[in-house]
């Protein structure tokens, strides 16, 4: 097996924003995607998107490193301030990454969605585009029982 960068982050300018998602506290119907979402307090909530070999720990607005006013120490208690970012153990690959559109930093996400094996950060309309960022970390092989 060739070594690969284990976590992919995909920027999609598309119609994903119109995909139906599940409000917190709502039980999904059978034909609804197994997604749950929130638009509350994103700058104070963490998330994890993980595969067997790589994972990301981030803030739900996509900032990766929280505002100093909210938390001078960053994400992490056991290893103070150092547990966020993109990890491919034993390497911490990235402490932070950011996306720019025409040299302008993209705004913070305003909606966060958890799905089956992925997360999606939805950004406010920017430069005439609807922008969302889907993150997942593929597993090295599929071993699901049939």
């Amino acid at each position: 097996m060739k070594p690969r960068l284990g976590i992919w982050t995909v920027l999609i300018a598309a119609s994903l924003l119109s995909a139906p998602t599940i409000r917190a506290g709502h039980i999904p119907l059978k034909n609804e995607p197994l997604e749950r979402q929130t638009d509350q307090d994103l700058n104070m909530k963490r998330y994890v998107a993980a595969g067997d070999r790589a994972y990301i720990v981030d803030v739900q607005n996509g900032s990766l490193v929280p505002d100093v006013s909210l938390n001078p120490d960053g994400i992490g208690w056991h290893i103070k301030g150092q547990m966020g970012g993109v990890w491919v153990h034993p390497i911490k690959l990235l402490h932070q990454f950011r996306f720019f559109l025409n040299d302008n930093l993209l705004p913070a996400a305003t909606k966060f969605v958890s799905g089956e094996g992925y997360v999606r950060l939805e950004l406010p309309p920017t430069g005439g585009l609807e922008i969302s960022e889907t993150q997942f970390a593929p597993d090295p092989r599929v071993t699901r029982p049939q």
Partner: protein
Amino acid sequence: MKASALTDKFRQDWWSPSHGLFADSLALSQMVLTDPPATVGTLPRYTQLQQLNWIDVAPMETSFASVPDASMVFPQLESSTFTGPTGFFQQGQSLPAIQGDLEASAVNTGAMAIAEANYGRMDQSLRYVEFIADELDIEQPGALPELFPSPGYKYFSGGNPFGGAMVMQAWSSYGIHWPLVELYLGIKPDAPAKTLAIVPELPGSWRELSIDDLRVGSDKIAVSVRRARMRYITTVWAPAGWSLIIGYTFPANTQVKSVRLNRSPAAFQIVNTNRGEEIHVQTNSGGTQEVQIQTAGGRDSDE
């Protein structure tokens, strides 16, 4: 013999009649200077400590406690000493002696959900299951956290919102999966022996519960339990090759009027356990097996 001797010894060491609780730890009554095993070996008895730690639930979580002892303990564990508005505390509070941390957390709330169901206290069990389910979206939607918002642990309000408890904690689903599969649906497999017991018990407010595609050994099974008035129907789909026990769990002294297997009258056993009276019907797997039990009275007034 050995098991009952150990149980008696455990109760002698740990049961505290003055509290109506099991001690949460045992202490030595003297300083140990150089040789702990030698010192311990000479003590006639340990000193019981009661610090209202959540481990008080362990003798019921393991179904180790007798029914009379458990029935003294549970009302205390359910009270505001140990249980807050969002879950079971890591350490309860009894002022002025014990301040407690008043932090409700997932895994010990799950231990209570399982403990209650082990003694047939299904409505109380469901209260703890729902405490856990209610926190599914507290931080990352769909990911159960380690700690719940509670008097001793605040979310999103100053302090250090990113340096606290886990955002996502695998063991937090213990109090959902385990009670629902092993106790509400009552599925207890012994895959190497190819035996499978399915003896459900539902909370009073639930009429049905089912599970599909459950892997047991190398097979997949499905189980459904339904309750209507005084009829209790347990249905099992399993491939051939398993010895099955199918039934339902009732409070002690329930009057069973009829027991049918696949619509024909069936022989059955009444087995007394900490849960109550379990009705067991023996059969073999292959296709669908359905046990229907009719009682003279339900466990609640839902008729």
